[in-house]
């Protein structure tokens, strides 16, 4: 009997690796579509106003161009998501809500002609006053949403009845540390720009493109086309990065190509230019977090009060759930009897802010880990010792009253950092002839894995594991590989549970025509939640095959042999639905209970050098110790953590989206920079495995957690180096220069 090597826990090369290193992997713009026309988008130059009509340049040759406005939409002019407030194209007479909002579309035989045609359309927009700050929005300078411009608000209370009781708890404290923390918008900067293609055949719309969530697009297109579930088929092409940026926005492109393809009577594809992609698509929510941390004379936390404000931009999109995650992480992974967290996300006239790795948690993590460091400074206590003293452990309760039962890696991650920390960097010296100061920053943080609250139960995601007639196995789910390694992980999980070699398992390309809805590829849920469903399906299928074998004289034979014998008799598919772990319940009304089934736990150490001539802060060392439950594929997990870590270091030091009158002023890769090979430090990654009993082989979410902590670690390190606080991201040389008076004396 053949005994395959256990696939789970091995750094198996990715199944799509060879296609990617040889250039054979076909992304949307690589697909053969010889007759496809190219679409382009006519966009607003004005942040807020009323669309009055279009002027088409009479000197332009319109004979080979299709021009489409909202009037041609046959279904509902909405991008259906949480609310249906966002239009696919602003109708004449309708409100323009942000610069670079889509107003009309063109399609032409070549991309050059399409872009030229788009430039030859002059929208006439009557401008209205625009709202560009959170404060203007709260003051209702213009009413953009509802009656108060607030898309969503939350109030979370622990250990007190009302505001007076909270204030009493704070008043009784020995010290109150109070701070306001600002974070900037951040561009996902996937290297493949947004891209989508549509074609109509026999009254059915076929859409293929770069995306994270085929069934999000499917839902949006059912409304937009006013069709049933079989009226539109959504398929993912190989996707060149997402990071949240291809969570909700692809529905917009899908609507546009579907409409153009219908009007042009042929396939139409839209591939955004980089500047267009940066200008028009979603960014991480900029935030302002006010935090009060009250401690007794011994430095024990007695109360935490946090007020979270986020700028949602011009439409609601995913802002309520981004805010929710931010609120639920705002008190941090620390013991505290009294907690109040208020959160509001407001409407402005910026392009909508949306999903980006971490999803609200990086903003509030930056605030609480700056506050905790200020407490360490106040107590004159070692950064690690303080965190060890205050951190949540098994048996403790979170801000929502969730009692932590299992898979709490606090001690392990803190011990791992302590083990490798070594002596702190020498405080001052010279580098390349410039005077420098050096410092070290430490953070401890957590990230809820999977959907918030009862999200997974409501979604009831399904996936299938099937024996094919060829005697091989297939995994069918709508969870996409966007570079994070999902399909490789699924192969390993299924092969492990089936007891077959990984080479016997295929993952079906996600298309709504051939896979069940396992939910969106978001929220650090793909491996843990969908992988768990696949593991269970594979085990059930294995049991059925073993029973069949016993009935057919094949008892004791390998699953591979049984599959070879049973396969030709007909497909055997096991469709399994997600089941929440026992005892996991969340009350959406009171915001109490198990906010997440389980958390990842992490600690991060950063050493920086600040150049006193150029004011640049350089990360010399960055160590992350992260409890992932179980690394199904350690190399892939390491790659996930390091990629997220560098995005966080970029957010801390050099990434910024600059708006001018509501328009992105640095909409190109020359000015909207992200870290290069030369900017990145050598990254040290320590995988900690404290198993989650309800995850596949103990695995829990890993995709987002590395994004949350490093920015605060960088700020803590710069504070250590210069002796003054940095509470605003990004900490660019200009910021350090501006605070020169504060640190030059110290």
């Amino acid at each position: 009997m053949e005994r395959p090597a256990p696939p789970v826990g091995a750094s198996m090369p990715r199944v799509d690796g060879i296609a990617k290193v040889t250039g054979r992997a076909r992304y949307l713009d690589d697909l053969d579509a010889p007759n496809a026309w190219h679409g382009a988008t006519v966009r607003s130059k004005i942040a807020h106003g009323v669309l009055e009509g279009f002027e088409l340049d009479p000197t332009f040759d319109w004979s080979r161009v299709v021009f489409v406005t909202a009037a041609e939409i046959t279904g509902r002019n909405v991008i259906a998501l949480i609310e249906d407030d966002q239009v696919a194209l602003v109708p004449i007479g309708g409100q323009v809500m942000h610069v670079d909002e889509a107003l009309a579309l063109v399609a032409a035989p070549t991309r050059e002609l399409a872009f030229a045609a788009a430039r030859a359309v002059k929208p006439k927009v009557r401008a209205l006053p625009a709202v560009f700050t959170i404060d203007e929005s709260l003051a209702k300078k213009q009413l953009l949403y509802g009656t108060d411009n607030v898309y969503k608000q939350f109030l979370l209370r622990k250990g007190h009845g009302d505001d007076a009781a909270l204030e009493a708890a704070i008043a009784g404290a020995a010290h109150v540390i109070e701070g306001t923390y600002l974070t900037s918008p951040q561009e996902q900067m996937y290297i493949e720009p947004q891209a989508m293609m549509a074609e109509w055949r026999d009254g059915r719309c076929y859409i293929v493109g770069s995306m994270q969530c085929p069934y999000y697009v499917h839902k949006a297109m059912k409304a937009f086309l006013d069709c049933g579930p079989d009226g539109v088929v959504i398929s993912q092409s190989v996707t060149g990065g997402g990071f949240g940026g291809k969570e909700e926005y692809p529905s917009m492109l899908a609507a546009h190509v579907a409409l153009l393809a219908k009007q042009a009577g042929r396939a139409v594809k839209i591939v955004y230019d980089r500047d267009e992609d940066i200008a028009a698509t979603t960014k991480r929510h900029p935030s302002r977090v006010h935090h009060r941390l009250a401690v007794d004379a011994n430095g024990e936390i007695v109360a935490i009060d946090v007020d979270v404000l986020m700028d949602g931009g011009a439409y609601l999109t995913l802002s309520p759930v981004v805010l929710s995650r931010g609120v639920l992480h705002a008190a941090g992974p620390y013991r505290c009897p009294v907690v109040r967290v208020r959160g509001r996300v407001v409407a402005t006239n910026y392009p909508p802010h949306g999903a980006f790795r971490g999803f609200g948690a990086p903003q509030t993590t930056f605030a609480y880990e700056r506050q905790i460091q200020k407490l360490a400074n106040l107590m004159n206590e070692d950064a690690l010792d303080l965190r060890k003293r205050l951190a949540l452990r098994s048996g403790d309760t979170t801000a929502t009253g969730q009692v932590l039962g299992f898979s709490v890696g606090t001690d392990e991650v803190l011990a791992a950092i302590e083990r490798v920390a070594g002596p702190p960097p020498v405080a001052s010296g010279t580098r390349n002839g410039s005077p420098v100061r050096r410092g070290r920053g430490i953070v401890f943080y957590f990230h809820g894995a999977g959907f918030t609250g009862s999200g997974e139960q409501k979604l009831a995601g399904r996936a299938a594991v099937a024996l094919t007639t060829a005697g091989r196995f297939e995994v069918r789910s709508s969870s996409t590989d966007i570079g994070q390694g999902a399909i490789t992980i699924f192969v390993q999980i299924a092969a492990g549970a089936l007891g077959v070699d990984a080479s016997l398992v295929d993952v079906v390309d996600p298309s709504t025509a051939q896979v069940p809805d396992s939910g969106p590829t978001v929220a650090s849920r793909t491996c843990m939640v969908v992988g768990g469903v696949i593991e269970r399906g594979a085990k059930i299928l294995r049991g059925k095959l073993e029973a069949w074998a016993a009935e057919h004289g094949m008892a004791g034979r390998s699953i591979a042999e049984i599959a070879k014998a049973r396969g030709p008799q007909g497909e055997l598919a096991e469709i399994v639905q997600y089941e929440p772990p026992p005892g996991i319940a969340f009350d959406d009304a009171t915001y109490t209970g198990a906010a997440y089934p389980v958390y990842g736990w992490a600690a991060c150490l950063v050493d920086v050098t600040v150049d006193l001539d150029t004011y640049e802060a350089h990360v010399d060392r960055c160590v992350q110790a992260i409890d992932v439950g179980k690394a199904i594929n350690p190399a892939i997990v390491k790659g996930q953590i390091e990629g997220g870590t560098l995005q966080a270091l970029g957010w801390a030091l050099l990434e910024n989206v600059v708006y001018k009158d509501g328009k992105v002023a640095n909409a190109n890769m020359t000015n909207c920079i992200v870290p290069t090979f030369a900017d990145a430090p050598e990254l040290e990654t320590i995988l900690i495995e404290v198993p989650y009993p309800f995850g596949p082989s103990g695995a829990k979410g890993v995709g987002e957690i590395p994004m949350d902590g490093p920015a605060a670690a960088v700020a803590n390190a710069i504070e250590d180096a210069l002796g003054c606080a940095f509470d605003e991201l990004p900490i660019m040389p200009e910021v350090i220069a501006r605070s020169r008076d504060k640190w030059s004396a110290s």
Partner: protein
Amino acid sequence: MERLVKIALEVNGAPRTVECSPWKRLLDVLREDLRLTGTKEGCGEGECGACTVMLDGEVVNSCLVAAGQCGGRVVTTVEGLARGDVLHAVQRALVACGGAQCGICTPGIAVCATHIVDRGLIANRDEASARATVRELLAGNICRCTGYQLIVDAVIAAAREVGASR
């Protein structure tokens, strides 16, 4: 109509002739005229390096090279790195080390890294110096997925393998 010119060049070891505007980007000649879609466009302005190819053995951004500059010259794209089914050491190492994630930057990085390894640009260096040099030489290729660590590991591993076989 724009003037079209015939341009003869060598691509991945084979003579090719294209008829196009001399202003057409080499990137588009490769992707559209020759259907070599391994070379990607990430930014169109020479910042991201996804379109990296070798031109007469030097690494260039093909989005910044005009077709009219390419007559009689030798182009190597990601499709030209392997010998048949035998991957270049850099390609094997990228797979083995986990240096490719979403893969859109990978062709450009594979081309540049092959240049580094085949030219021996990090040969006979200690580990730290070799890693720093790889980071400097690949600084024109942006990857948003990996944090670069596993790509650097792969280039070092490939250089060792190629160096050992010399």
